[in-house]
């Protein structure tokens, strides 16, 4: 990765190193972290020794941490409201990603910023859920007939909904991957293995292995890489929290095989270890299902490594933009077969603005 972001990565790997940064280094790191959505994360990691940071720098970290804490409070409040709206829905309603980390107070939650709340529920409950949410004041953003078909037939989620008064965004998923995607997984198993969340009567969270697999799948099927590094930091925090237990790694690989998510898991382990020095046992990498050949892994390095650095100009190299473009195309390729994808891209290219 570009040496310009070496200090930023070092801060993520070894927070204590931040105490030794000079003002000039901070001038870059604060901007890089802000662009990557990780300034609050650095704030959370530095809170214990902030008197050793320059006061002008700590102000920014503390400000981002304050924002993250407010968002965490807001998510708790929002979930309390949502559980009333969803009272009558049968079956588990599972929180994913940020909302799950915040509600269960998992390690990635510290200093993390949110954009929306993600839910996963059985496909059979989708219509009832949408109706209940609309009664609760959640509305879908305006879409034309094509967009609606795109979401309802091919995607793994409803069109994003926003609460009319509180302005919160909500994504309701019934699967981890689009219906039209090349890769098929088994969301029913994730719902079945989820456990009720203490303190939030209507919600469950995925089992630890499923939290990791969902985060990895989301990241490595993504087309927009602005938050790629942040998602990798989430994975790093989860793997460090659960990986201390030796049986975890065997269960994780086994689960990846069952859910057909070996490849995204492989990438997650590879890049978390490479960029964030996450302690991943050698056997876990070696025995990962769907492990790519060394040639194809080398090709993916050329794409993924620059993409993780795409959030800020100081980190971007010559390869960043082409890599980001290829990954954008790849994400669509993974999402839809060609006979759907080509008309879809053509439509997006010709449509003047919006989705």
């Amino acid at each position: 990765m570009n040496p310009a972001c070496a200090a930023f990565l070092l801060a993520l790997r070894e927070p204590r190193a931040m105490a030794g940064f000079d003002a000039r280094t901070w001038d870059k790191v604060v901007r890089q972290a802000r662009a990557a959505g990780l300034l609050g994360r650095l704030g959370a990691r530095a809170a214990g020794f902030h008197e050793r940071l320059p006061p002008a720098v700590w102000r920014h970290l503390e400000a981002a941490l304050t924002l993250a804490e407010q968002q965490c409070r807001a998510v708790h409040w929002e979930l309390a409201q949502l559980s009333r709206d969803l009272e009558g829905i049968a079956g588990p309603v599972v929180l994913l990603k940020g909302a799950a980390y915040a509600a269960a107070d998992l390690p990635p939650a510290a200093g993390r910023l949110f954009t929306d709340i993600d839910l996963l529920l059985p496909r059979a409950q989708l219509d009832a859920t949408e109706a209940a949410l609309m009664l609760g004041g959640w509305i879908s953003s305006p879409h034309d007939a094509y967009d609606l078909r795109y979401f309802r037939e091919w995607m793994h989620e409803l069109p994003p909904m926003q609460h009319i008064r509180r302005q919160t965004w909500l994504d309701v998923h019934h699967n981890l991957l689009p219906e039209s995607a090349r890769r098929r997984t088994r969301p029913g198993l994730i719902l079945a293995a989820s456990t009720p969340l203490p303190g939030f009567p209507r919600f469950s969270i995925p089992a630890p292995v499923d939290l990791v697999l969902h985060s990895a799948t989301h990241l490595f099927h993504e087309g927009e890489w602005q938050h790629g590094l942040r998602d990798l930091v989430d994975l790093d925090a989860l793997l460090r929290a659960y990986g201390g237990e030796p049986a975890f790694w065997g269960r994780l690989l086994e689960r990846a095989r069952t859910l057909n998510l070996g490849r995204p898991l492989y990438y997650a382990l590879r890049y978390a270890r490479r960029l964030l020095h996450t302690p991943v046992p050698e056997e876990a990498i070696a025995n990962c299902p769907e492990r790519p050949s060394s040639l194809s892994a080398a090709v993916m390095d050329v794409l993924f490594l620059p993409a993780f650095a795409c959030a800020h100009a100081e980190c971007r190299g010559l390869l960043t933009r082409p890599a980001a473009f290829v990954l954008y195309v790849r994400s669509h390729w993974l999402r839809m077969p060609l006979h759907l994808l080509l008309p879809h891209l053509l439509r997006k290219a010709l449509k003047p603005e919006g989705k």
Partner: protein
Amino acid sequence: MALTLGLLSARDLRRRLALGLDLRTGPFRFLIRSRREDVARGLERLYPDFPLEVDGFRDFHVRVDAVAGLRRCYKPQCNFWHDEHAPFKPLPLNHAFPLLEWGMNWCIAGYAQHYLMLHAAVLERRGRAVILPGDPGAGKSTLTAALALSGWRLLSDEITLIDREDGHIVPLARPISLKNQSIALIREAFPEAVIGDTALDTHKGSVAHLRPPPISVARMGEKARPAHIVFPRWRAEATARLTRHSKADAFIHAATHGFNYSLLGRLGFELNAALIDACACWDFEYSRLEDALAAFEELVA
């Protein structure tokens, strides 16, 4: 002696501005880049007393420049960038300087969550700060300008920063934004006032900025203790009159007109409550500036 912007030659200022002019205002450092002549002229006229810094950590990297592309030929536009991000829609090219001012306010209001931030002007005299929350059109900026030009220390015209450690007010000492009739009014009442170019037809009407008094800038490192909150209201023919404003209402007003009251959670509540406890709260109606100045003088006598 520290280097101030006014000590640069005209050429040196423009050369530095093209690369990044490292300016301090209160607790913040801005690295400002622009190739616009009107931005250089605005800084030259309104910021001469502000210190320049070298290297190290800058709070905000900002830029105001013409928008590239075909728009250069037809109704050219300018925009504001914070680092790589452009938060606003482009404006006509001749609004570049007010756009820089608004952009700098946006940076502070959006990122300085370290402070409780109220949407209010604030000035200090005899060690006592007076906060002026004002709804648009209440004559807040005119009054702020008149006070600043009559011996009061200007702390801020738009954003009142409350320090989370001690509840004191942290100065910014940036130029005061005058709108529409108040530009001519201040020019007439204070012929010595230094006022920048007037930008016509902005979303706020005509806008011009007033240079802050040098002593306010020189003392921008000194915090001030809050003593009064005054809700001003200009009304034709009114006699200047201070009346008590309910503290409960002042609390709600400060909370709802703050930039980040709810974002700070419990801390926001505590800082706001301490502020209202420390201040006498007033409604103030006036029509003539000289009466207003006399009334404010009495507040801190």
